[in-house]
């Protein structure tokens, strides 16, 4: 299994540009998450989804949008890139459809995004 796959791995954007960070998982997980990790800091939740068609804001949603049209995919969109969005972005998924809800999050390898 590939697990959680994020693309691209690196990207440089100019201020005001837009882009979509892709995330797909092949584990049939119902929960998916987007985090950002600023240098030397922990993870901050941007958006999450509990299933196809359902999304909710996390701690730092401003400047981002998400959609969840399928179970597998959870893209993150930046509409007007700003320098403050320079960060490493992680997508994660987790499963609650088992008897053991001690299931952890499975993470993608991250996308390093620089806004110049």
């Amino acid at each position, binding site marked *: 299994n590939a697990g959680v796959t994020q693309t691209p791995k690196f990207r440089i954007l100019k201020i005001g540009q837009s882009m979509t960070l892709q995330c797909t998982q092949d584990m049939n997980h119902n929960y998916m998450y987007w985090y950002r990790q600023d240098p030397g800091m922990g993870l901050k939740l941007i958006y*999450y989804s509990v299933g196809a068609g359902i999304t909710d804001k996390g701690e730092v949603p401003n400047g981002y949008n998400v959609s969840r049209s399928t179970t597998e995919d959870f893209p993150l969109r930046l509409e007007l890139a700003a320098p403050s969005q320079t960060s490493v972005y992680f997508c994660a998924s987790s499963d609650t459809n088992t008897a053991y*809800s*001690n299931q952890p999050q499975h993470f993608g390898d991250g996308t390093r995004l620089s806004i110049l």
Partner: protein
Amino acid sequence: AQTVTQSQPEMSVQEAETVTLSCTYDTSESDYYLFWYKQPPSRQMILVIRQEAYKQQNATENRFSVNFQKAAKSFSLKISDSQLGDAARYFCAYKNAGNQFYFGTGTSLTVIP
């Protein structure tokens, strides 16, 4: 919202020695789960160990073990026989019954040869 605090931004340990990373959390819930993740320079997030709040027995995974003190809301990670490959940033995470995860700010561990 739940908060997770890791009060040690950086730690170091001599190779083959033991080190303990601390984590405390704040919650009013009784049913939750705790995790330690490792993030090496490759940036991957790797699960190290997990603990269910309803279990009194501390979890162990080979050289990794936890000291879970539910009343004190403390969840420390002990790494025994430290190896060079243990050098990484370690994150403590809390998961509530609603499947939401909260992460600490991490502890960067250096292993000295």
